[in-house]
């Protein structure tokens, strides 16, 4: 035993300087190449968006039409409704809750607002009505999740199904198009300074959500809740209240998106609501892949929305069949979720086993 001790002691100091020498250069190299990597990571989707746009601008099949102002205006105005719904879905997603009812809420608000407008309801009140409907649905989601303890996916899936039923019952499957005030549809279809007015609405909502998430104590608490629910409770947060607010906010924004849809389309199609959910959720998930990697964020959601839109629009112009957009959205959703999970794991330093 004693004969073993000296070599052990002699060997012990040796690894330390080696580790010290090896560590110093590795750290410095990782910080410079790491910065490039981080920048790439933060902007990969944005670069991809630009590259896709350039590709469709020069590709002979789409080059003529893609860059035309008419096409770009259509592109922006078509995405405004989806973007606002995506921003709605983003808020609960930050605290790891999926709201699958956002599309259905928008659809219900659209149908009810359209029929109220054709019944002569003044436009400002109709807007409040639409947002109110969304908020009410959000409150029900909030109560189901925070009070009744229903799993968020199940609660909102059930809510979506019920709301679809309400829409079909109300409309009998017929679109509501009659007597929508012209001033209202003008807002939905017109341009100001060459930019669709609905795009301004989208930017306004995006700024609002960005401010909420990035610059208010509530936003900080929403991120904390998503990071570690037990720890959030132990630093004195009202976790159920914060969680509930995210569902209510998602509902309100979806309601607003429904109103915007009526202005844009000049009516409401009873079948349109459900179709919004998937692209909106895909964008919300993909938001964690850019701008602030590993974190669901507003900038990332907008980049994701327009990446998907440009891709679909370009393929559309190239004469691709409509089903191709299903492929694109589906793949984007899976990639988005996978990428977000990967970046989150990297950021929080946990292994895949921790999932």
């Amino acid at each position, binding site marked *: 035993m004693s004969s073993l001790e000296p070599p052990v002691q002699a060997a012990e100091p040796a690894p330390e300087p080696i580790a010290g020498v090896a560590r110093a250069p590795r750290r410095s190299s990782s910080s410079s190449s790491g910065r490039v990597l981080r920048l790439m990571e933060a902007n990969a989707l944005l670069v991809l968006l630009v590259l896709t746009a350039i590709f469709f601008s020069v590709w002979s099949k789409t080059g003529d039409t893609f860059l035309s102002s008419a096409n770009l205006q259509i592109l922006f105005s078509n995405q405004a409704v989806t973007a606002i719904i995506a921003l709605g879905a983003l808020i609960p997603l930050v605290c790891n809750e999926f709201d699958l009812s956002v599309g259905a809420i928008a659809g219900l608000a659209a149908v009810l607002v359209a029929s109220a407008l054709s019944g002569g309801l003044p436009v400002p009140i109709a807007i409040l009505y639409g947002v109110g409907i969304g908020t009410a649905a959000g409150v029900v989601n909030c109560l189901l999740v925070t009070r009744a303890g229903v799993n968020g996916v199940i609660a909102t899936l059930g809510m979506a199904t019920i709301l679809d039923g309400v829409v079909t019952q109300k409309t009998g499957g017929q679109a509501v198009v009659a007597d929508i005030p012209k001033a209202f549809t003008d807002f939905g279809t017109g341009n100001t300074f060459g930019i669709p007015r609905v795009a301004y609405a989208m930017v306004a909502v995006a700024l609002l959500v960005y*401010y909420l998430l990035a*610059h*208010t*104590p509530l*936003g*900080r*608490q929403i*991120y*904390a809740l998503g*990071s*570690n629910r*037990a*720890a*959030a*409770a*132990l*630093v*004195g*947060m*009202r976790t159920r209240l914060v969680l509930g607010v995210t569902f209510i906010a998602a509902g309100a924004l979806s309601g607003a998106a429904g109103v915007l849809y009526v202005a844009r389309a000049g009516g409401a199609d009873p079948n349109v609501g459900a179709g919004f959910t998937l692209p909106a959720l895909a964008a919300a998930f993909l938001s964690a892949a850019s701008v602030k990697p*590993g*974190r669901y964020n507003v900038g990332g959601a907008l980049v994701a929305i327009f990446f998907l839109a440009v891709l679909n629009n370009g393929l559309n112009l190239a004469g691709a069949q409509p089903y191709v957009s299903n492929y694109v959205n589906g793949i984007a959703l899976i990639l988005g979720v996978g990428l977000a999970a990967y970046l*989150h794991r990297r*950021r*929080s*330093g*946990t292994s895949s086993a921790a999932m």
Partner: protein
Amino acid sequence: MAAPDEAMAALRLHGIAKAYGNTQALRGASLEVSRGTIHALLGGNGSGKSTLIKVLAGVVPADAGEIELGGVVHDARAQTAVRARAAGLQFVHQQDSTFPELTVAENLALGRGFETGVGGRVRWSKLHERAAKVLERFEIDADPDAELRSIGSANQMMVAIARALQDQEDAHDGVLVLDEPTARLPRHEVALLLGALGRYARAGQTIVYVTHRLDEVIRVADEATVLRDGAVVATLGRAEITRERLVELILGDAGAAIVRAADASERVVAAEQGALVLEADGLGGDGACLELRAGEVVGVAGVLGSGRTSLLRGLFGMGEEPPSGVRIDGEPADVGDCRAAMAAGIAYVPEDRTADAAFADLSIAENLSLSTLPTYTRFGRMDGREEKAGARALMSSFLVRAESEEAPLSSLSGGNQQKVILARWLQRRPRVLLLDEATQGVDVGARAEIHGLIRRAVDDGATALLVSSDFEELVAACDRAIVVRDGRVVADLPRDQLREDMLNAAVYGQERHA
């Protein structure tokens, strides 16, 4: 196969040695366990008891020694978990190896595989039938189709034991090792389990029973082996097992003297120093009473399951029933929930940092500001610049070493993460700081720094309660220590008696009053 010789030892350990670095955990421990007996294995912190079990289970390789099972000699250096099992050694740890949501029958089947029929279908009737037989054999009063969590914790432990032993054809084969099986059992359930163990032993089962609880040893053990400083000090026969004798052996001669001194000191209440900051009575079921003064760090010692963690959680409003009669600076304080406790001036650093305190993917600045968001809020807007400046100030004041305040918490070492958590709470200038295993998994340097930071906080007039299973830490960091048992404060060690041997004495010596 020859009939087992009743007289032959079921398990014999010879000259087991194991060193961790420069620490000699086991120095040639030898012991012999007779067939069909309950053999208790005892020892204080650092006695080598846990290492011995790990060697036996093949979790850590021994440096030297032999393990003899049923007459077959194995090299202790080559022991592996698979070999231990093949040789008939079965280990049942605390309640972490069962599945509360599954039925009793399913839990039993998970140990050996499900019987399946055509198409891989589980043959439930067969499963049920066999489970019923096993339950009957082990005299467990439970329905095979009941959910495991519904049958009481002693029965759950017995199901775990039955699962380990169900394939053993003959009760005389093999050795069952139980590691602190009663640590998490409520008191009234302990008797149920001990009764069952006695029956199994009478049927010929050999049981090695590892425990801290002397009253249990006295109740069921046929023999008791005591380890101290990595060696076996004695093996007692049934007639020799008394509380005094066990305490004496666990602590050594010097320690036994200290027990008497510690007893005498129990009534010595905290010294004259600071003003009373925290007073609490009605803690736990039996009304523990606690008085903490300004400027002191009070250690909390106690074995696993003694209620030391629930003591802290209760004070922070996390207990099943909020404690009544909590006074802070003489004023009655409401600690009904976390928010109320925080408002009353209490801070709580939980035991499990990853699960209960760290926001791993958020930045250091965000981790720090979460406990004081209103400080950084102007007209509903968070002042990010001020938040980061605040974080930088806290990081330098609390010796947090990190690239920047915007780095995610997960990029820090355990010690630096813990300093961030500590800073998160201390920036609120709490009156009472509750710390549960605050330096677990933290390197030596950071540990000393954390102790220094705690000291700095109490020097400003706060008071701190520090739970640690490491007695060395309690001695290094605390002014005095209380000993907790079954949720009650059972002893109070003043500064001049705060030594590791005294703590061992107080924690184990208390057994005599049980």
